[in-house]
Each structure stands twice: as C-alpha cells, then as structure tokens.
C-alpha cells in the first residue's frame, strides 16, 4: 500500500478552471477565424477600436473583418479576466505551492499574449503573429493542465498510482510525439502568416507531382495561373517547400501516434484509461489529416482551415495531458520517479 498525503479538491475551483479552458478553446477558434479571414489588421489601433474604448465600440460597426478581430479581442479580455480570477483563487485557496505559482504563470502568459497580439497590430509585424498563435496553443495546454490538476481524477491518481504503471519507454515516445506535434503547429502557424493563400492547390499531389517543381520559371507560372479573390502575396519556393514539409511531418505524426496507441494497448491493456486515450488521440490525428486535405480541396475555406487549427490544438493538448498522467503514474521500481515535480509526498514503496 502506498502512503500519500491526500490532495484536497475544490469542485468549484476545478469547474472554474474547466470553464477557463473551454473559453480559451473558443478564443483559439476566434483567433483562427481572424487569420483565416485575413482580418488581423482590420482594426488598426490597439487597445482602442477605431478610436473607441474597446468595450464601447458600437455593434453596428462590427462589419466585415472587424467582426472577427473585435470579438476576438473581447473574448481575449474575458479569458484574461478569468485567468486572473483563477490565479487569485489558486493563490489563496490552493495548498500545493507549485499550483499557486502555476496560476501566476498562467496569468503572466495570458497578459503576454494580449500584449503580443496588440503589438502585432501596432507594429505591423506578421512574425509576431506566429508567436501569438503558438503561445495561444501552449496557453490552452496550460489551462487544461490546471483543470486536470484541480480534478478529483488527479487527486485519485496521486493516491493510487502504484497500480498504474507506465513504462518509461512509452512515456518518452508519447512525449517526443507531442513535441513533434508542437513543431508541426509552429510550422502551420508560419504557413498561415505568410498570407499567400494556398501555396499548393492540390492534394495529395503537389502541382500534379509527388514533389513540385520550385524553379523560378515554374513558380512564375503558378503565380500567373492563380487567380486569388483576396490580395494574397505571390507564392514563393520557400512557401511551397514549407507546405511539403508540413505534409511530410503530418505523415510522420500519424505513424508516431499509431505506434503510441499500439504500444499503449500492448503494454497497458485495452481497458487502461491511457490506452483508450491513446486511441482517441489516433482518431484525432486521422481527423486532422482529413481536415488538412479538406483545407486544400475547399481552397482554404475559413471554417475548414479554422477547424484544422482547433483540432491541431486538441492533438497537442491530448498528448500533453497523456504525458502528465503517465509521468505521474509510478514507473517500475528500478526506474526514476519524476513525481516530486508534481508535489507528491514520497511513496512508501510496496511490491518491487
């Protein structure tokens, strides 16, 4: 039997953390719509909106791209406020010291996100948009982690982890796959902020070939034949190659997640929660691949492209949550136990 200091949970705090995570997910979607509709610069000033206080901008003026950008800012303000409440709540009510500081970290991160978004507008820097999009995904992971750590599930996990061991090799594989997914998200954000539309208009081929011609003449021809409705930037060889790397990485991620799911089934058993989660992860990746193809087939339609962004965020979060739970579950006695980072009291080891 393990001797653990039980973690006290506050269901109100937990559900507020869940609400904050859900609001963050919505905010991710709105942010995705802003980029998909090329509306990121539709409100030239910040923190005001067309000279108005942001909260007093007349709804009658929420037209065109302004609608997406302005509602994004409003929801971002709400998420900022919720994060502040959560951080204060954790600080005064949470017994685990690391959790209190994690709440502070969330607050700092959301504030940084707000400033990044504002500077992207006032400094006209597309590159900041890539950071803003990436940190948004990481912030979503953090809010989900806060929701997890405040849950009864986590408390139960800490109290009963002896019986739920995850081999180190599997943990490492899932962690590495999650990091690769993060890299893919950064790549995707970079692609979206090129503002060049679809660099490759067909799938699974690329300009009719398995690997497209990116010579100067060929690219000039692609640009000559492309008729874009929005004033996108001309396609460059770099953008074509970026999309090809994105496609290749998608295939690699699918294979990695499939291996993770198979390993989880094999080593944890099909009834294990983590094995089921790994299977759900695989289904998510399959959906993401389909959405990626649909983004191209439907000429980067805003709703399809934004859904692709959201499912990407979910894929990253599922991998991260899987890792958090897996690293919490005790490894076999001969392996290192990285439990102290989660504030758990030392275990009186039972069966070795």
């Amino acid at each position, binding site marked *: 039997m393990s001797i653990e200091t039980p973690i006290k949970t506050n269901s109100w705090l937990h559900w507020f953390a869940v609400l904050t995570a859900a609001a963050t997910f919505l905010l991710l979607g709105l942010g995705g719509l802003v980029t998909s509709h090329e509306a990121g610069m539709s409100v030239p000033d910040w923190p005001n909106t*067309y000279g108005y206080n942001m909260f007093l901008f007349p709804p009658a003026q929420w037209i*065109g791209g*302004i609608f997406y950008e302005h509602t994004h800012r409003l929801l971002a303000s709400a998420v900022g406020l919720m994060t502040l409440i959560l951080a204060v709540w954790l600080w005064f009510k949470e017994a685990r010291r690391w959790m209190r500081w994690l709440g502070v970290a969330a607050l700092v991160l959301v504030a940084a996100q707000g400033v990044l978004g504002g500077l992207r507008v006032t400094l*006209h820097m597309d590159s900041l948009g890539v950071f803003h999009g990436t940190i948004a995904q990481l912030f979503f992971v953090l809010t989900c982690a806060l929701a997890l750590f405040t849950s009864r599930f986590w408390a139960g996990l800490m109290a009963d982890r002896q019986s739920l061991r995850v081999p180190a090799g599997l943990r490492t594989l899932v962690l590495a796959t999650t990091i690769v997914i993060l890299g893919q998200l950064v790549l995707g954000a970079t692609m979206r902020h090129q503002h060049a539309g679809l660099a490759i208009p067909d799938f699974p081929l690329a300009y009719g070939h398995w690997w497209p011609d990116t010579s100067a003449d060929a690219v000039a021809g692609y640009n*000559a*034949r492309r008729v874009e409705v929005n004033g996108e930037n001309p396609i460059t060889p770099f953008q074509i190659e970026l999309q090809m790397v994105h496609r290749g990485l998608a295939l690699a991620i699918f294979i990695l997640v499939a291996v993770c799911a198979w390993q989880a089934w094999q080593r944890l058993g099909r009834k294990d929660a983590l094995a089921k989660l790994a299977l759900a992860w695989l289904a998510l990746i399959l959906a993401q691949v389909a959405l990626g193809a649909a983004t191209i087939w439907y000429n980067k339609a805003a709703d399809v492209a934004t859904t692709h962004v959201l499912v990407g965020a979910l894929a990253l979060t599922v991998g991260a949550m899987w890792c958090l739970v897996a690293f919490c579950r005790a490894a076999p006695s001969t392996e290192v136990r990285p439990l102290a980072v989660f504030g758990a009291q030392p275990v009186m080891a039972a069966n070795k």
Partner: protein
Amino acid sequence: MRAREIFHKGLPTIRPDDKIHTLFEFYKMKALKLAVIFPLLAALAGMPVTQAADIVGVITLKGTPPPEKEITPLKEDANCGAMYQAVPTTHFYVVGAKGELADVVVSLKGVTGKSTGASAPPAVLDQKGCLYAPQILAIQTGQKLIVKNSDACIHNVHATPTVAGNPESNQVQMPGGADLNYTFAQPEMFLRFKCDVHPWMFAWVSVIDSPYFCVSDKDGKFVIKNVPPGKYTVEAAHRKLGTQTQEVEVKDGDATANFTFEVK
C-alpha cells in the same frame, strides 16, 4: 591692290589704271565666300534636331488567361453587396478582343534620380463599391497619392510596401472621412494597398523614380512622353505575368517598343 585687301575692305573705286584682274579677284573672293557659306548653311539645315520625343508601343497577350473569379464575399457582405446587381469579378487580366493587354506598367529601367514627383499633381486612389479604383496605378517617388473613401462604410487603408524606406501603414478611413495622403521615397513595383475589413479589396501602386512611365490602357497602348534623346531599356511589368525589357533609342522622333506577354 591685292585681292585680299579688296576682300576685306570691299570694292575700291576703280581707277582707269587698275588692272582688270583686280576686279576678277574681288568677285572671285566674293564667290568663294558664298561658296563656303551657303554649303555650310545647307549642311546645318540638314543636321538632325535633338529634341525630346515619346516612346510608344502596344502590349498584347498571347495565350488564354485563367478565368477571373467572382468576388463572392463582396456580394455576401451586407454593406457592399447591396451596391451590386451581379457578382463582380476579379480583373487580373484585362484583355481586349485582339489580345490587347491593359494594366501593364511601362517605365525606363535604370533611369533614377529624375523624379519630379514633388511638383507633380497628386494621383488619386478611390475606394468605391468596396473595390479600389484603379487597381493598377503608377506614381513617382515623392509624388502625393490621395486615397479617398467614396463608400458609406468603414475601410482601413493598409499599405504594405516591401522596400526599405517605404514604411508600412494602416489607417482608419471612416465613410465621408478625410482623404488620406501618402508619399513614397523609394521606387517599388506593385506596392500593395489593401483593406483588411474587406479582404478582397486591393490595389497595386508602382512607385517610379522618374517621370518616364505610364500604364497601358484597354487597347494595350502606352505612351511615355518627353523622353530625352538617348538609348534606353524599356521595362514592361504585369502584376501576374512578370517583366519584359526592350532596348530603344530616342533619336529622330518617337521610338517604338511593342511587347507580347504569354500565358503558358
């Protein structure tokens, strides 16, 4: 009296004792004078006149351009769509019945530092019907560009230059609001203006460091006026089809440079 003296001093009073050949010598010199002067005048008359002239030409398109697309988001917009009966289309390729290609910016390559933009009348870019008009425009460095909002809805005017020295800007333009003024110090081809509120709105302004440029009209014709004599490289640039050059010499009257672009 010697003939030379007569030549310089004129015909003296002939005295009966002067020799006859003295008169002959005088008229001979006169004739020589005229024989030199008249041919010289004639030669001068025949010399070519060194004056500025125009460079003219026609630009055509070979091949079939891709079909233009309907600007569906415009028609679906509550404010903008109401201004149209039919769905407007893009117009990247404005081609006449015989292949005449409009919207090609023609200029003299390598001719810089000759801008008269500061004293040139301002150019105008208008936002009307939720579209920029014209879509292709050329101005000089230092020339004022006035952007108007003739629509009854908000636009933001977002200039996105890529050349250092031409700053990016993004300004509000309310309906009925004041005109916005721009000048660009550096030459740049196809500097994009866009509206992010209505992302289908964009225009391309080419900034040229001399007064020697024009944009081909709907008949594919262009005229670059008052080009000083000399040899030049004429550059024709289309937003989609790239750039072509041709060597011309402005010598005796107008020079001609025709271009043919091809869609492959």
